């Protein structure tokens, strides 16, 4: 239950409701144990976007600066949506992969722990 106390009615819309994104949705991407990128990055994409396109363009553009990117064994990778393990198909869309507005997709690459195993 909210603890908010006010002197007058208080009802304001969320700044980032999905309606504000003109048919797109927000998606956050993080590569676990590669903290060189400091924080996840955010995209606004149509729900029909193929997940493979996100890997091949957005993730590759950003993460290929890291020497581990070229070492990834894509058959071994695992994914989380927030803290929940999920199976993602690169040939399916965001919607068909069950990825909704403001979901955080985390890539786990077993055996790759960043520069000198530092997590960075």
């Amino acid at each position: 239950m909210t603890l908010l106390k006010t002197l007058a009615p208080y009802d304001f819309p969320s700044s980032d409701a999905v309606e504000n994104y003109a048919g797109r949705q927000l998606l956050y991407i993080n590569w676990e144990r590669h903290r060189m990128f400091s924080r996840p990055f955010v995209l606004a994409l149509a729900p029909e976007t193929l997940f493979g396109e996100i890997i091949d363009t957005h993730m590759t553009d950003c993460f290929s600066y890291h020497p581990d990117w070229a070492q990834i064994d894509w058959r071994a990778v695992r994914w989380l949506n927030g803290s929940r393990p999920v199976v993602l198909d690169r040939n399916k869309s965001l919607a068909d992969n069950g990825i909704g507005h403001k979901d955080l997709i985390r890539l786990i690459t077993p055996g790759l722990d960043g520069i000198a195993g530092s997590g960075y």
Partner: protein
Amino acid sequence: MDMKVSKKLGLKERYTMMTRDLAWDTTFQPMDKVFPQVGYEGIKIHDWNAWEDPFRLTMDAYWKYQAEKERKLYAILDAFNQNNGHLSVTDARYINVLKLFLGSTPPLELMAARGFSMVARQMVGAGPRVACMMQSVDEYRHFQTQIHSISNYNRFYNGLDEFAHQQSRMWYLSDGKSFFDDAITAGPFEFMVAIGFAFEYVLTNILFVPFISGAAYNGDMAAMTVGFSAQSDEARHMTLGLECIKFMLEQDPDNLPIVQRWIDKWTWRGTRKLASVGMMMDYMLPKRIMSFKEAWEIYFEQNGTALFTDLARYGVKVPKCFDQTIEEKEHITHQSWIGFYMKPDATPFHTWMPQPEELDWLSEKYPNTFDTYYRPVYEHWIAQEKAGKRFNNKTQPMNCQVCVSTIKFNEPGDPMEMCFRETVYKGEKFHFCSDHCREIFEDEPEKYVQTFISSHAALQGKCEPEGTDVNAHDYRPGARMHAYWRMDKRASGDFNGSEDQKNFAKWRAQATQN
């Protein structure tokens, strides 16, 4: 005939006449209609006269003291500027501290001035009203003197001219803006706990170490004098914040859980705000004073423990976040610098990799963490720079819904893992940097769903020229953020090779050689 000389008033009597005797209870309108804000937060006050005025400063004396401080300050600023004092700083990298300071601090002093002026109107008792009014004027003075001391640098260096425009728009200034927006939209008592107590009393020393001592250590007499000129005001502010806490707790036992929740919330929010301040101490001051970790131990752990031991008699407990901040003191400055270094196009100040002796200093100051987690990535980046591949992350950040920091902190207990927290409110997902921020959200979700996150606003097309189609195939988010931020490109990028670096070297050579 003897002259009848009336007895001079003692300080206490004079104070009473100049403050409390000037106040009155309204009769045309009931008091609770004139002062509605003091009731709605749930704080119960039975006797406003029980408020102790620790300083007993009257307005006329206040103006006299402040005017004297101003005279001294501006004499020094003039001398410093006329003497090309900017060339006496240790190294041109130091000027980037001023750039970050200018964007992040004076605008918040202005917010504090607004906040205390509101609280001065909202409070019932004459004692707190006068004290808040004085603090409001102080904060306004700090806002002005900070800008005046730095304005001389604006004649010579890039990136100082649009701080007022940038304050409410730039990603890395959103944490401070959000901190004050949150405080000023709370009621008067929560504002006093947020700013008067958590920030001024518990955390302000950490802010003063890099700026005032940092200025002194690095040859910036202008900024140093501004700091000293503010220090006696700060002593008064700290006392006001503490007095307000004690007053609330003494008035009614029901106030304790409310006050405790505010202490927990605002100590955490202040701690998050200080991550970038700590980064200045560890990375940006060419001549360092002490590490952030050492400062945290002295000013937060030791002083904070003493303070909360004293407050224990009122039933107040140490803020919930205390243990987490102790763990994080080993990490947050490095995590912040990594976040800034990787975005060279997105700040109106320069970043750089530490020099070899600076890496060694960090190893020495952070023996538990630096060599394991941070040195390897820095050495990698230094090698990349030499190969002409300086890191430049072009992506847009994910931010915490409450503190608006980029989500860059580690999972407690595991420095290799990121800390993520989320919750769902009215069908929408919200993300946080920590348990503490999630709890703040869950207590008052109606408030924090409105948070301004610049990367989100950009993706909504709000940071684009009128008529931009964010669904167009060739639309590139963030591509025009420079224009939106009014960023001078000369002010961004790596320090090495910057115009500031070259000019400083040239002008200093002119001052010291034929």
